[in-house]
């Protein structure tokens, strides 16, 4: 994997990136795609909940939150 591609979990607050791959299938995969998380989309990390999980993302003009375990399936190029 390229050096600048990392798991969404490790994205820091304020950091921007482009989704490269999503390796989730089934219900999780579908939920993620339904909410607009597909390869090629630009996202920005808006912060994390007080207990460091879930994470809040900005994409397509809205804010989305997901848990770290879901974020693990998404790889981002920063």
């Amino acid at each position: 994997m390229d050096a600048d591609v990392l798991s969404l979990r490790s994205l820091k607050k304020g950091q921007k990136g482009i989704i490269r791959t999503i390796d989730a299938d089934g219900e999780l995969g579908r939920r993620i795609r339904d909410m607009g998380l597909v390869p090629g989309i630009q996202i920005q990390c808006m912060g994390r909940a007080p207990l460091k999980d879930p994470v809040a993302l900005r994409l397509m003009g809205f804010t989305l939150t997901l848990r770290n375990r879901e974020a693990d399936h998404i790889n981002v190029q920063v």
Partner: protein
Amino acid sequence: MQKDFSNIAIAGNPNSGKTTAFNRYTGARQHVGNYPGITVEKKEGIAHLDGIEVTLVDLPGTYSLTAYSMEEVVARRVLSEEHPGAVIDVVNSGVLERNLYLSVQLMELGMPIVLALNMMDEAKSKGVHINTERLAELTGLKCVPMIARKGEGLDDALRAAVELAKETGGRVAPLEISYGTDIDLCLKEMVPLIEEAQLLTKYYPARWVAMKFLERDEEITDRAAKLNPELAAKLQAKTETLTSHLQKTAKTYPEALIADYRYGWISSILKNGVMKGADDISHEDRVAFSDKADRILTDVVMGPVILFTVLYLMYYVTIEVGAIPNEWLSGFFDWLGGTVGDLMGDGPLKSLVTDGVIAGVGGVLGFVPLIMIMFLFIAVLEDSGYMARVAYIMDRVFRFFGLHGASIMPFIISGGIAGGCAVPGVMATRTLRSPKERLATILTVPFMTCGAKIPVFLLLVNIFFEHNRPLIMFCITLAGWAAALLVARLLRSTLIRGVPTPFVMELPPYRYPTFSGVVIHTWERTWQYIKKAGTVILAISILIWAAMTFPSPPAEVEEQFEVNKAAIEERQATGALTEEEAEEQLTELENSDLQQHLLNSFAGRLGTAMETITSPAGFDWRTNIALIGGIAAKEVVISTLGTAYSLGSIDEEDVSLADSIRNDPHWSLATGVALMVFTLLYSPCFVTLMVIKQETAKWRWLFFSLFFNLAFAYVLSVIAFQLLK
């Protein structure tokens, strides 16, 4: 197949303003029901347009039309089977790209669509410009700008939809976009087979059915397998071949590719002169305000502090302010019972009307103010966008117990801070969109210290823990939390097992809730409670009343009572007793008569018979009867205990019951603790049980709550008693 096309459906994402539009169209002319067997609300209403009436169906808010959530299944069924003439697809113009994902799927389904571009004002202030004509040209859809909150564009959209319904008869040629060579080829093979066998084509376009096979959509594949197992197997085989091919060549799944191509289609249209100014994802006005607010409201320290303050205030107002109209209502019903009772002769009929019917209906209606206030708050918190933040902040904690961040609300309302009520608590779980987490929440909120259990705790704490009252009361509340969370954890790894529902949730920008939206929400939910709970609970209160009244004691007992009464009256008449002494003796006599009645009733006999089972927990027949009565309503526990000690009717401030218990050699610290444990954990009251049935749409969970909680409470109170004895 094609019936009447006068219905117009309203579809859209959550937070797209769809409900605001529906409320604007129909005002109070709404009918809310549930779809049979599931808990998704079904809303219909009548709108007036140019002098005609149009029936509107409000579809549940969904991001997609897959079959993973109940909302999506319902939306799809209404579209295909109830067959509306046209669909008004309400989209949030500021988040057009994602909102169009649902529109594409509606088009694939062959629905005639009017695209209502809502929140055009917000989009403009964000710097997003949408060329409506260009969008209409490229998609072939009628596009109408709308600002639902201000009522702008509503009539235009509805007029367009009605015309569209007339023109199209409720169906148009489904949108067929390319999903890449591999999938397109596979679809081309599948479609003729589906058409030939007419597999589900009565409801859906053939290509759509084929796509659902590729997307592994179980609702459709299961139905297909039942109708035509042979063909379904064939289509399944083709899907598998394609899937393994895509896995080998591109490490992807057909459903992922289909989604990619849908977004690709949307993006190509938006970039083709439709949308300008949305490139920079962080330069936005309202969102910028929300971001600033979130910096404080979801802050590591301030976030939880504000959250608990808001929850506490909400709880406080619900319970404290709700108690005022609650008192008026119970005062009114006491008065009504007294007045009606005075008009009727003594006897079972009077008792039925006053103690059974009026007390029962009063009990149900007594909850109405609480429920209204609670729903009012929830509507405000939801519509303002804060509820999503609550779930976001609390999720990490609740997830550990197999619940969801949004579970905190029902827990607090049910008595997470002592003194709530599980009835509105169970109903508050409607805000949870994850079915397993929601069910686990519903089944565990009754363990909280609701307001009706508190008098029992106060009584026992006063007797057995005179010096540590606040501490022990606090420990009871904590014990409620511990029991609820641990049972939730247990349920989620046994009966409601399964991986957590993915937590992929939108944080909508903060908005002022609209007055009409909040009022309509509150009223329709309250009315639903009154209607549904009212009828059944009335019947059950009569049943409980009968169990505690019949059969009457044998005639000798009654005769003896009359003889004794006459004797006292005579001694008063002859001057052997003063008036005061006579009154005292009469009261004593009447109380002992009441005790006899209770002891002789079904409930009394059951309580006595159960002594053998309950003695390991230290409960005698008096406690047993009180606890049986408590299943009707927890408030009854104390008053029944009073009757069983032949004290007449009493309340928790009455010292006589505490004295009776203190002086009763049967009672010890162990008995007191065991009874507190049992009261905290045992079966929810009947109103709660009915609401559990209503909210889960299954009798199974009502009986589970009744019997599991009884067993759970029994085991723990036996342990407590045996350890402390």
